[in-house]
């Protein structure tokens, strides 16, 4: 009897070939974790290489699939243009994060296997999140993305700032997740579906649970939408749910910050694109004004907040808030152009931020005040490679022509004007004007101010004890890893892999700023995935 019932209940057909992007990442993560158990010499050399190989394999696999979108696992996941393009962004961010953390404290403190494995699991979570076709897979991806990041933020567990950052992110992130799952549950209650297609049809009044005239104005659906929006907003650091961003960015190990700033933002905005522009697109009359208002608030809050910062990671945190507002504007218009513009900007955002964060990593390895804006003074003389990379990153973020920032803003403004949101385009531009105040301050520090001696450069004991620029007291027991990192790198500029990453991404900022067509074509896959061929 039981056996007969089980036999009748056959599971879904699984197309393992189409599942490859996920399997590569999951397999790689497990393998890295196991290899990490081997002797210290092996794991320090092999684990990063294995991680890079996994990511490279994932990139190759994703790139070959771009023209063959597939829906897998009974429609729970879609490996389509939007997902694949964003997967490429996540993988690129992860590769950069691995490269710039080679000499960092974090992987050694957390254990190489764990650090890199968590990074890969996070990438897997992001891939699932942006592929999700139902609220269930969406939430699975959301959590798989977040939990490894909570740990990674606290990877330098001997440093108080890192622990604080991890704990803060855990608490805030959990609140966000709880809000999201509550909202998704309400949407299920209102529509009777977890699949996006079913939700979309029911809202428009086509599904079999539907009332005539659809669900517009249904209080349960509206509450659900509002709660889900809050959940996404936490993750994408959209105002007024952004307060954690500068604190977590500041405290987390810089390579982790770089990864979070770029990949997490791409994942959160990617899922918002799919959720708002597809699943609940029918109810856009209710959410679009709210989302547009939030985008405008985010742009203003982020830019104004960044103006007062003296710590460069905090500044980039606020700048990331503002840029999230720009990209959210592309979600608001809910057109193919809007999707293309947001995805394009996400790719550009990756280049600009990785370049900037890599420079910060290199500076932190050389100086104790590497993450202060004043610590950049005289960089133009000290290390032209880093100076030019940072300058280009800042000019690109400010949207100067000849860089990707200009093209990205151009396309966003076009999508906004085209979609009838000219006022939001004006807000975007006003935000960009405010942003000049802080981006140019960095450029001015690099080129126009003479070098100030690093605080504590003379006081070797203070540096060795690990007193950070923020004056954080060292935790009892000190940090042998930090000592080694500080001692090893005090000898003038060196062209390391960190400089290489910074220079490569800065070069991409200029290269794709002048010849952006390849990325336009890539982003067009995303728009096609959501809105079909027009």
């Amino acid at each position, binding site marked *: 009897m039981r056996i007969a019932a089980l036999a009748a209940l056959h599971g879904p057909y699984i197309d393992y070939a189409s599942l490859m992007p996920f399997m590569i990442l999951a397999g790689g993560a497990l393998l890295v974790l196991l290899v990490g158990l081997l002797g210290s010499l092996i794991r320090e050399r092999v684990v990063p290489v294995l991680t890079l190989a996994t990511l490279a394999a994932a990139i190759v696999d994703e790139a070959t699939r771009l023209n063959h979108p597939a829906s897998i696992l009974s429609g729970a996941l879609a490996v389509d243009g939007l997902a694949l393009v964003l997967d490429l962004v996540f993988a690129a961010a992860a590769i950069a994060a691995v490269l710039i953390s080679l000499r960092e404290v974090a992987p050694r403190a957390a254990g190489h296997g764990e650090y890199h494995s968590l990074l890969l699991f996070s990438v897997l979570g992001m891939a699932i999140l942006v592929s999700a076709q139902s609220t269930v897979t969406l939430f699975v991806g959301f959590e798989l993305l977040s939990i490894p990041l909570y740990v990674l933020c606290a990877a330098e567990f001997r440093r108080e700032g890192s622990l604080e950052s991890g704990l803060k992110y855990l608490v805030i992130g959990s609140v966000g997740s709880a809000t999201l799952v509550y909202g998704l549950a309400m949407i299920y209650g209102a529509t009777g579906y977890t699949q996006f297609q079913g939700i979309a049809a029911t809202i428009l009044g086509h599904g079999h649970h539907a009332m005539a005239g659809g669900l517009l104005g249904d209080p349960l659906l509206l509450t659900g939408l509002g709660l889900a929006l809050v959940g996404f907003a936490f993750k994408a650091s959209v105002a007024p749910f952004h307060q954690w961003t500068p604190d977590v960015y500041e405290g987390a190990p810089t390579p982790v910050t770089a990864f979070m700033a770029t990949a997490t933002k791409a994942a959160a905005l990617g899922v918002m694109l799919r959720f708002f522009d597809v699943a609940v697109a029918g109810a856009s009359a209710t959410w679009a004004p709210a989302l547009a208002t939030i985008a405008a608030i985010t742009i203003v809050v982020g830019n104004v907040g960044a103006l007062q910062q003296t710590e460069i990671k905090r500044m980039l945190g606020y700048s990331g808030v503002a840029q999230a507002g720009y990209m959210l504007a592309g979600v608001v218009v809910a057109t193919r152009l809007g999707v*293309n513009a947001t995805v394009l900007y996400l790719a550009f955002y990756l280049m600009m931020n990785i370049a900037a964060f890599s420079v910060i990593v290199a500076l932190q390895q050389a100086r104790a005040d590497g993450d202060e804006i004043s610590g950049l003074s005289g960089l133009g003389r000290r290390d032209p490679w880093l100076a030019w990379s940072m300058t280009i990153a800042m*000019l690109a973020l*400010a*949207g*100067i*022509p*000849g860089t990707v920032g*200009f*093209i990205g*803003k*151009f*396309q966003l*403004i*076009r999508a906004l*004007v*085209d979609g009838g949101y*000219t006022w939001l*385009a*004006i807000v975007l*531009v006003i935000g*960009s*004007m405010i942003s*000049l*105040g802080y981006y*140019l*301050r960095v*450029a*001015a520090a690099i*080129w*126009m*101010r003479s070098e100030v001696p690093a605080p504590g450069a003379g006081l070797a004991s203070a540096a060795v004890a690990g007193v950070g620029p923020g004056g954080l007291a060292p935790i009892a027991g000190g940090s042998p890893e930090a000592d080694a990192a500080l001692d090893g790198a005090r000898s003038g500029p060196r062209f390391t892999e960190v400089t290489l990453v910074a220079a490569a991404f800065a070069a991409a900022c200029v290269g794709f700023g002048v010849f*952006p*067509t390849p990325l*336009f*074509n890539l982003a*067009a896959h995303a728009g096609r995935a959501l809105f079909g061929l027009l």
Partner: protein
Amino acid sequence: MTLSILIWVPLALALASALLPGRLAGRAAVVWSAVALAIAISFLARFSSGVAGLQFVTDDVWIASLGIHYKLGLDGLNVALVVLTTVIFLAATVWSAFRQWERPRTFYLHLGLAESAVLGAFCAQDLALFVAFFDLMLIPFYFLTGMWGGEQRVRATTKLVIYTLVGSLFMLVGAVATGVLASGQHHTHLTFVLSALHALPLSHSSQVWIFLCFAVAFLVKMPLVPFHGWLPDGYKAMPIPAIAVFSAILSKVAAYGFLRVVLPLFPYATVHFQTLMLIIALVSILWGTVVAMTTPDARMVVAYSSVAQLGFIVLGIFSLRTQGAQGALLQMVNHALVTAPLFFIIAALAARAGGSEKLADMGGIAFRAPVLATLFLIVTLATLAMPGSSNFIGEFMILLGVFNSKLAIAMVASVGVVGAAAYALRLYIRSMHNRVGPSVSSFEIRPGELLPLAGVAVVILVLAFYPQFGLQRSDATVTAEIGAVRLHSQSVYAQRGPTSNPPLTASAPQAAIGGTNSGSNTP
């Protein structure tokens, strides 16, 4: 030879010469700016005058998905300005080559980038390309001011950049909106090519707000009152070659933007805002004249005289008469040719007055420097628009145009002509004659001062004897363009329906300006 070569030669050669040792950087810069001048002159020689349309057109798709073309071309509006740019940059690099600069390779690299960006802005025939070059040309000046400037340079350069980029970002919105709305209202593919946009006139309400976006960008860049907040700090802090180029050329890009973009694309708004623009120009003339007559700082005399002169140029453009616009174009050239040498002269004066640029510290310099005094006198007489100088013809044509359209404004503007004589002579007399200043130790002109000054002075004299040189080349284009705008304004008044879509009666002359294939294109 295509225009691309002209545009990119300065940047490419400046990049290449950055590989040379630093002590050769100055000489290399003179070479690349001379090469650019030679190329520009070769285009001028092959330019055919009687043609209204574009010549030497380069047209490639740049960003297909945005409909942005890499389209360059010369016509009567920009041919003289392109040559002028290369002349002024050569003068600036020659002046710089005789002096020592910290980090010389970076210095000349920024100058090369500036020249490429300015030439690109002048030649661009695609709205998005124009905006890109217009914004790009600010970046080298940010660094030139911030790294090699005087006191308070970081504050000044930040102020300069924020002021001008605020304007530029409004222009960016305006430009995107122009393309998107034009293609949306006419149901065509998105395009930013100027000649294509001529054929897609915007609705009146769109024209009005987009006009304001562009006007803010251009007025800040020039600058005119009340958009000149960055000017005192910026001009004080800039190094001499940067300020010479900025005042001579970058302000002209903005004035040129009105002729190239605003008048043809937004004819309704141009007529709508004509009086407002004329009043802004008039206020700038009076304000600039008064400050130039009273400021104790020699550099500020020239700075505010530029405000007044640019007021005249805008006055001429918005007279919406052919003579006025022709005069404005001529005056753009004239003003550039006097303002750049004036800044070199101020540097020479400061070198003889113990480093001070205060008029009170100067005086009696002519006594031991007769050649410098002669050159200075030539430039001064040109500045005050002495009859016989090309400036006189320029101001005369501008005022003629305004007299024909707005009599009262022309009467008041004439006061500015008298004021120019007052401040130009005040600068000359207070520095060169009068009692010898306390810390003045004058000496005869040095080669590093003579070469750039004499070169530009020769061009001033040539233009004084032969002003048709510029006028005959721009005549056909300007006549077609102003004709199109005026035809439009008349049809608006005839129709009495300002909210309806603009009539297409003006399309024939518009096509003449924008027409790329007018049959006379030389490869």
